[in-house]
């Protein structure tokens, strides 16, 4: 069973990842280049998958399940940090790229608290 602090960390991380997704959506709308759009899709899918795992952790009330999910999330921190760099390369708008990275970095801080 997640503690109140863990639940709050999850909610905060969810909000950050969701914000990063929204900036990615804006970037996709600004492009009609097939290669760029394909990469944006890949990045969005990664973020969405991470978000689903966080929400699933929040929804579970089983201690063992929660611990396993929290560990799985923390193990993906390195992958998500690599995604940050990818997103910077894909999103042409420097400001938007910085926004996305900021949100993801912030989310990872919260995930570390689980």
């Amino acid at each position, binding site marked *: 069973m997640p503690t109140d602090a863990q639940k709050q960390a999850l909610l905060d991380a969810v909000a950050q990842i969701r914000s990063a*997704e929204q900036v990615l959506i804006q970037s*996709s*709308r600004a492009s009609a280049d097939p290669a760029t*759009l394909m990469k*944006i*899709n890949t990045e969005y899918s990664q973020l969405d998958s991470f978000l689903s795992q966080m929400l*699933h952790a929040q*929804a579970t009330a089983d201690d063992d399940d929660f611990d396993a999910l929290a560990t799985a999330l923390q193990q993906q921190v390195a992958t998500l940090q690599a995604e940050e760099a990818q997103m910077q390369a894909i999103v042409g708008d420097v400001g938007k790229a910085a926004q996305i990275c900021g949100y993801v970095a912030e989310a990872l801080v919260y995930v570390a608290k689980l």
Partner: protein
Amino acid sequence: MNKNLLRLSQAALAAAALSACSGITQIQDSIGQFDQATHSASAAQMNFLYAVQAADCTAQFYQGSYDWATGTAKNFDLTGNCRPTVLEDKEIQKRQALMDAVALYADKMAAIAGSDDDKTLSANAQKVASQLNGLAKQHGLPGGSIAADVETAVIAISEMALDQRRYRDLKTAAADMAPHLSKVVDTLKAENTAFAAALASKVDGIEPKLRSIIASTHDSRGQMSFFDVVAARQILQGVNPLGSAPLTATPANVSSGMNAGSVAAQLNATLDAVVSANDAIAHAGTGGIVAAVNDLVARAKSARAVQAALSQ
């Protein structure tokens, strides 16, 4: 003179009796509305959770189709086969149990408020309360373990619903159950905002896939891409359970006034109104109770609008 005084006091007594009767009728009416509005809130809450699961499954279908179209999957699936990633069936069942407890409580309050001497619930409601009580006591509510204080709340509420002797007074019942009702409602509220984020994430993710395929096929499709764009727009409108696409703020859905975040906020406000109405029943006079229940009824009406949108 004495006769006049006697008549005056008789009239005053009659007026007071009439006023008391009218007050009782008003309270009975309000508790009836409290019961109905709480059931509406419960139905809207459950519909929302099912919509989150449906959006998850829809997103999986589009992801699978996209993966096949772009060569990263060997096959595609048309059956709608889905393994929920956010809310599994058992997790929805658990939340259904919590909403059942809240609805049973409102039913019991309506029974206590009734002029009938029999303050018990219908046989069917008693059966539900009895099952809920038994499962909670054995730590066996559907969907696995649950926080101890929430479990305690479910036990207390279901016992109150089954009670045949202790609770014959609305104010005592409302005051005793207030902390338990708050606990169950707070548990549900804390999750709604996050589940709204999931719903929006799943639906929003379909748009870049459609853009990617349209852009990739534009060279070969030429001007026919116009129809691809139109069809993609229709797909986006169809997959959004709130009827407009995408769920992020755009002129299209700002006008509809409904997005995933606002739906969660409306549901939470309705759940809050259930608790506030109960607090008013416990502590306020007739006017306060009527006002709080009217607020709940108004919020439940909004929740029904959300439910109607989600049911489409």
